[in-house]
């Protein structure tokens, strides 16, 4: 009996193996033919570089599929892994195509409009739930189970759901979806989903796994990748893909509308093209010492009766870099040091402390745009509250102490010397709360015994803070400083909303991200903007690496 069954399974498995072998050959041929078609005729509405990527992907798929076919003959487990990978990716592709053909992605936006009209019916669902839950409170032993309130509640909930789905347009949705699928693109995508779905199912069969000598750890690997795949595919398509694309664009003159031309390192060369020139007098004109057709003055350093002039082919980049680094240098300490002290204060069990923690955290969760608009009003030089309090305070002081202190009438956002400071104050104020919460978490991980031992040894509050809290918080501090630095290097929203124009008086608030936004999305020099983005990446990467090295050197845990 056993032998008969095994021979039946083997025969069936062999048949399936023949099918999947044939499928691999067909797959390879299809992929190869498509790659060759794209190579010869191009792809309608596809940029040449996208065509190249298509050819590479299709060629790789064809080669891998052929290789898998060979491995099937050799009964090698790699055939299964390759087949499952190729079929899974193709399945995902056709599934997305299916959803796109059915215009589901477009319709998701529209769902918001109809969703509200169905909400009252969800009330019926809630009523059904409440009715069902009454059964737990008022059980009636003599009632048949099918007559219980729980069953009635379930049916009511189901009816409510159905009404809700009808109201939000499910019927129209199904009809529209089916209608879209009736077209050629819909039929191809449905066929693709079915074919690749069956291929995955066949290759996933236990008999095939055995026949291809798959071991349990191979199963684990496949399962692991399968679970990872949604995130991994999302990362590759929406993060790594654009990242590589922007790297490619940085070597082109892409304007987003026309086919980009390869320009090599021209974008980088222009950004980094700088000149230093000696000045014979502090107010010597730039045109006398540099070629003003190529360079613009960025700044000058006065030394005695002369000085040094710094000029660049793209002065805005260097101004933006200067402002961004200034911003980082001030924002990081202003948002980290107060947070450290604040967290020490809040790390106590005094009544009302949770309330204060929530208060300090609030700026971090508020929308940047809203916050910036509120600060814009506060900063207004003529009717803003900040200047009002300064004026009132100085008037009060002068009156009480009979002094003659002048009201500075600070023009927070319109004065070159204070504009960046105004942005720094907002950014620091907004970050302190979040950093405080992180420090609090770090503080609560420090063993209380250490403080107790220090107290026994006679250490005061400052000594405990300096010699226990600060060193043991080092990993948290490192994380906070790194994150705050990275965020500060990417400052954009506050400047864009607060300042008018965003560059501020005399370009005093132009920052790297603001500049690349201007270049990429207003001047549409996307190739150039990509080059700026990659330089920004290098600067951030360099700063973070420096922090890592410093952390390793001074880390209390590692030493």
């Amino acid at each position, binding site marked *: 009996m056993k032998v008969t069954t095994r021979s039946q399974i083997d025969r069936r498995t062999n048949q399936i193996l023949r099918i999947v072998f044939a499928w691999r050959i067909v797959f390879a041929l299809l992929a190869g033919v498509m790659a060759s078609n794209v190579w010869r005729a191009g792809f309608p509405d596809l940029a040449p570089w996208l065509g190249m990527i298509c050819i590479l992907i299709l060629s790789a798929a064809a080669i891998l599929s052929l290789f898998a076919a060979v491995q099937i003959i050799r009964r090698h487990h790699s055939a299964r892994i390759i087949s499952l990978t190729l079929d899974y990716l193709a399945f995902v592709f056709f599934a997305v195509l299916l959803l796109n053909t059915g215009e589901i992605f477009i319709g998701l936006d529209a769902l918001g409009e109809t969703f509200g009209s169905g909400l009252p019916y969800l009330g019926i669902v809630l009523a059904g739930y409440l009715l069902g839950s009454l059964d737990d409170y008022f059980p009636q032993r003599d009632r048949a189970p099918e007559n219980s309130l729980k069953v009635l509640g379930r049916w009511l909930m189901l009816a409510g759901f159905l009404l809700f789905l009808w109201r939000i347009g499910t019927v129209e949705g199904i009809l529209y979806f089916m209608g879209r699928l009736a077209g050629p693109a819909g039929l191809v995508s449905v066929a693709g989903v079915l074919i690749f779905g069956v291929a995955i199912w066949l290759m996933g069969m236990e008999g095939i796994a055995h026949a291809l000598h798959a071991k349990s750890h191979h199963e684990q690997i496949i399962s692991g990748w399968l679970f990872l795949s949604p995130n991994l595919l999302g990362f590759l398509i929406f993060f790594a893909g654009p990242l590589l694309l922007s790297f490619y664009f940085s070597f082109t003159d892409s304007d987003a509308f026309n086919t980009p031309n390869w320009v090599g390192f021209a974008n980088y060369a222009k950004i980094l093209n700088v000149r230093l020139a000696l000045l014979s007098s502090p107010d010597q004109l730039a045109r006398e010492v540099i070629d003003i057709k190529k360079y613009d003055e960025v700044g000058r350093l006065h030394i005695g009766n002369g000085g040094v002039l710094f000029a660049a082919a793209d002065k805005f980049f260097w101004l933006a870099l200067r402002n961004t680094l200034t911003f980082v240098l001030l924002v990081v300490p202003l948002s980290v040091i107060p947070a450290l002290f604040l967290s020490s204060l809040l790390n106590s069990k005094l009544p009302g402390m949770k309330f204060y923690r929530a208060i300090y955290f609030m700026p971090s969760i508020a929308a940047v745009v809203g916050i910036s608009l509120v600060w814009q009003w506060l900063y207004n030089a003529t009717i803003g509250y900040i200047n009002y309090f300064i004026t009132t305070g100085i008037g009060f002081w002068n009156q009480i102490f009979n002094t003659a202190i002048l009201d500075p009438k600070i*023009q927070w956002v319109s004065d070159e010397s204070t504009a960046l400071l105004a942005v720094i104050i907002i950014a620091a104020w907004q970050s302190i709360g979040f950093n405080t919460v992180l420090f609090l978490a770090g503080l609560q991980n420090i063993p209380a015994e250490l403080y107790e031992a220090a107290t026994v040894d006679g250490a005061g509050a400052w000594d405990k803070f300096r010699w226990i809290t600060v060193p043991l918080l080092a990993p948290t501090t490192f994380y906070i400083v790194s994150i705050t630095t990275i965020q500060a290097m990417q400052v954009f929203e506050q400047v864009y909303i607060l300042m*008018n124009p965003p560059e501020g008086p005399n370009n005093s608030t132009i920052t790297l991200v603001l500049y690349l936004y201007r270049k990429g999305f207003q001047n549409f020099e996307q190739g150039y903007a990509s080059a700026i983005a990659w330089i920004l990446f290098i600067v951030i990467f360099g700063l973070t690496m420096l922090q890592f090295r410093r952390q390793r050197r001074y880390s209390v845990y590692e030493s």
Partner: protein
Amino acid sequence: MKKSMFWKVPGLLVIVSFVLAACGTPAVVTEPAITEESSATEDASSGDVAIRWRTRPDNQEEIDVYSQISADLDAGLDGITLTYEPGGSEGASYQDQLRAEIAGGTAPDVFWIPGTDVADFATRGLILNAADLASSTEGFNVDDFYAGPMEHLTFNPETSASGADSGALWGLPRDVSTFALYLNMDLINEAGAPDPRELAANGEWDWDAFLDVAQKTRALGSDVYGYGASAWWGPYGVWLNASGGGFFNADRTACALNTPESLAGLEFQRSLYADYDVATPYGEDPEPPFRAGKVAMFQNGRWATPGIRTVEFEWDVVELPNGPSGTPGNWLFWGAYVINANTEHPEEAWKLVQALTTAETQGKISALGANIPSRVSQEALDAFLTFTPPANNQAFLNGIAPEADPTAEGPLWAGSWPQFDQIMGPAVQGVLTGATTVEDFGETICDEANKVFNQ
């Protein structure tokens, strides 16, 4: 098991249905159809061509009016089904979003852009040259609109010719606007300053008279200002224009910010901030203090009228004062409805552009008070005068009258306007905030600004 299935099945049903329900809505007319494919397809139910259009409204009231206009035109235009999409406000970067959509192939068939953007859009091939469509349209005449905008809208970059026979038509102006001074009459009366409206009526409204009113009202208190203007090219440009200067040379192929006339205009404006200290700090938004009753003369366009209508003090408007050149140097602001170069229905899109710029349609929009019709029509102008307050609506019409010689806001066909503005704006701000002298500005500005021209 059964219990668990009872919950799983409806749960799954709900999720699937949400997704499927999402597909049902494109049939709704008001829902924007986003894909090229769907915008290009004909309305399955009626056989009409679906056309999407967009403009930049400033508030919900304008959105409502444009939506109503779209519905009215939809009913009147045979074979066309319209979908109106309100664009983002100025702060939401209407143009940035639009450009991104054009790049992504999802932009509407017809959209509005500011006059300064026309060259950029046209030279990049993003908007359709409607000259052929216009020439085959019976009764269409470019002279029906203000000459300034039409000169730019009919500019042919290949021949550098403008006009009806230039072979180019990039769109039609939605509306026009110009600057005026919004007056806080309570402050002016309290200061005992002469009424600017009377001075203007008597031909005595010049820079000296303006300064006199500004100084008298400034003397009312340390927190009261005589004049306020926003920090962009429009407000500071008028002072340069009024003294005979300007941003560009005559054929707009080079920077003219360093001419003696331009520098004289800038110097006068600088003196308002630094020497006479009559103006709200440059770079600060002057509208809040004006609305708070702290500014006597607030320079802004017609678009500010709906907002100003809510203030509680007595207010009106007056035209800008005449400068040394004998004119106020005002701008003729405009924006245009243009056709997406990738539209699959250019004829229908052109019909819509015409329908959106009829006197009747423009009258409906002008009734809101935010703009002036772009058609040169006495009927339209008479109607505009009835849209009060302000009582002195005539000040806006005086600003765009030929005798005031307004400079039409214009694109830069020979260079990049955004880049020119990016260089000019901060440099002017440096002068007006005291960081740079006018002399230093004059010495260096055109060295830098001329780089944006195609030389």
